[in-house]
């Protein structure tokens, strides 16, 4: 497959691994403790497991799987709100596929569907708008979810609905923004991170400027990374070189997609439709200031939170969950007391077991082969 296979070339991978080993040999820190590099984005976590990258890296490198899976970090209370909206008889509730299985305090959207709610899986918010046009007698609600990657598409859908005068369409907005969360992680006292792989898809929209504070203020290197396995290895190599050379900069490995300025048209649409919330609740991390967005007052008629009465109850994470510690790199997924027992992909307790991009679910399914086989 053209433009894909080139980025999965085994010989280039082997060459990069040799380079990575050389660089690691020049880092003093690596002699005392592992170098912890966090990949922020769930898409990276998925690739790392899909291609077995952890097993290829030298043992001095630990990859910490970050909070960048929007499905995982969705709090239970918000899922309950989704279910409450979906169960209204006039509503057609539309959602991306992987949000169907996220457990609420009582049920998931999949269970609500089985019990009779009209929940439909769509592949784009524009599909939801098309459903609204086709079903003028029903209320079509789209479950808007994700970081800056998906924000422009939902913003443009709202603008399109406004232009067409579609009145039976609304968004249940759960969009979140990654930067405040990275900051919250960097501010935590038990932090042990030495560098970051920056989220490629988010950066395609936002550009690289929002990460500058990580390099300047927190003195940690960040490399915006693509999602193919060679992208990830090259980005790790770039982070390591910064560590070896005592640099802390924002670099862009994914320049074939990401420009430093980002996508102006997408940012304009997002800015027109959304504004920051004062705070938003993250599963596993708690409430984080300015980490979510909502529809601006001018588009309030498209806001499902305003159109429908929702329970809006905060449900605390189970006290036994150690998702927060896993997210910050304090413990590994399999070191959590609940991992693989009470918390498994069938009945996830914690955020990270929810979606295949979550660190724990990825560990459970694709496994750190050596670790689960008891080799390391």
């Amino acid at each position, binding site marked *: *497959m053209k433009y*894909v296979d080139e980025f*999965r070339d*085994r010989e280039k*991978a*082997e060459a990069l691994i040799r380079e990575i080993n050389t660089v690691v040999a020049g880092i003093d820190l690596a002699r005392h403790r592992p170098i912890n590099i966090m990949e922020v984005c769930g*898409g990276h976590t*998925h690739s790392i*497991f*899909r*291609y*077995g*990258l*952890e*097993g*290829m890296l030298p043992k001095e490198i630990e990859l910490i799987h970050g909070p960048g899976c*929007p*499905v995982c970090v969705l709090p239970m209370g918000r899922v309950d709100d989704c279910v409450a909206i979906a169960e209204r008889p006039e509503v057609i509730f539309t959602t*991306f*596929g*992987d*949000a*169907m*299985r996220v457990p609420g305090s009582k049920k998931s959207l*999949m269970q609500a569907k089985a019990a009779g709610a009209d929940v439909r*899986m*769509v*592949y784009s918010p524009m*599909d939801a708008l098309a459903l609204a046009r086709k079903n003028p007698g029903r209320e079509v609600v789209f479950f808007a*979810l*994700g*970081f800056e*990657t*998906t924000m422009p598409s939902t913003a443009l859908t709202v603008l399109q609905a406004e232009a067409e005068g579609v009145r039976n369409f609304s968004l249940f907005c759960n969009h979140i923004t990654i930067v405040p969360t990275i900051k919250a992680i960097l501010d935590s006292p038990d932090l042990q991170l030495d560098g970051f792989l920056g989220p490629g*898809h988010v950066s395609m929209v936002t550009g690289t400027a929002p990460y500058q504070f990580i390099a300047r203020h927190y003195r940690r290197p960040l490399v915006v990374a693509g999602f193919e*396995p060679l992208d990830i290895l090259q980005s790790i190599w770039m982070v390591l070189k910064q560590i070896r050379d005592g640099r802390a900069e924002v670099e862009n490995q994914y320049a074939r997609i990401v420009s430093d300025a980002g996508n102006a048209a997408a940012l304009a649409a997002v800015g027109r439709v959304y504004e920051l919330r004062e705070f938003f609740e993250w599963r596993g991390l708690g409430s984080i200031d300015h980490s979510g967005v909502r529809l601006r007052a001018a588009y309030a008629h498209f806001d499902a939170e305003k159109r429908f009465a929702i329970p809006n109850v905060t449900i605390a994470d189970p006290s036994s969950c150690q998702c927060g510690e896993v997210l910050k790199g304090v413990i590994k997924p399999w070191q959590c007391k609940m991992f693989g027992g009470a918390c498994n*992909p*069938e009945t996830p307790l914690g955020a990270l077991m929810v*979606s*295949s*991009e979550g660190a724990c679910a990825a560990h*459970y*399914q*694709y*496994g750190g*082969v050596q670790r*689960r*086989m008891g080799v390391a």
Partner: protein
Amino acid sequence: MMSIVARPKPRNLGKLMVSHVTVAHGGGGKAMKDLIDDVFVSAFDNDLLAPLEDQARLDLAALARHGDRLAFTTDGYVVDPLFFPGGDIGKLAICGTVNDLAVGGAVPLHLSCAVVIEEGMAVETLRAIARSMAATARAAGVSIVTGDTKVVPRGACDKIFITTTGIGVIRPGLEIGADRARPGDIVLVNGRLGDHGAAILCARGDMALQSPVESDCADLSGLIAALLAAVPGVRFMRDATRGGIATVLNELAAASRVAIEIDETATPIDEGVRGFCEILGLDPLYLANEGKIVIAVAPEDAAVALAALRAHPLGRDACAIGKVTAGEAGRVSMNTLFGGRRIVDMLVGEQLPRIC
């Protein structure tokens, strides 16, 4: 007196004069008889079905000529859309059950067919499905010898559900089972993986993705017969339907208490299916197949088995994808094309497209 002729005189078959099925066709009266006669009996036409008794009567001696063990299986078929590139629910309902018999080493012989029809279905659609079943059965050398028809109110089923049950006979000497794999065995497949799953997802049309991928839906009994003729010592065979080859490999590893290692570079996947999976974030190892089998053979039999498979049109792209090892029992892993290694576990639920 002359001996009594076993086959009764065929009665006059009813004719269906309407364009759509109604609940009246499930009522047990003339309308139902007309539907069964005109759509099913006329299409399936064979001596064992013709008497239209409540049961087909099979000659035991005739069965015993094929072997020493009876194989017996059943499967329900529901698919949306009913007609898709490469097949339809009728072809699927025959091939699926024939394949389930064949992978056990049985010669498939007779099928039953029960259909549940949603009222409002066009009679022409039903005829097309019945014709497809009849043609597929004929080509596979099996006869549909008994059946049942029900009509349910709109909404009580999705257009049509078909259940086929099949019997076949296993010849002496064949011992094929999920518990028989041994370390060192070679794992083979008869061609490219995931075509059916990808074709069905595309054909549903709700992804606005177009792909030339066709379902691999096929009767594999001929291919399997050729394989067993060449290698009677085949250890394991299973068709990799729902859950894909990942599921079958996990079942094999668990039942035989062995580990299985497959190579991503050796795993044949159509470029179109790969592209489709890339876009939706799906894993082709978990996509359904309707014409692919996973086979385990002793290492010394691998070359002969591969040659036999490749000599058949349905095994042209057959290849060895991995091997059975003495590693952790039940563990399936894949050496990725990138040089890494990952676990291939059972899927928890169904595969869902990823958000971004």
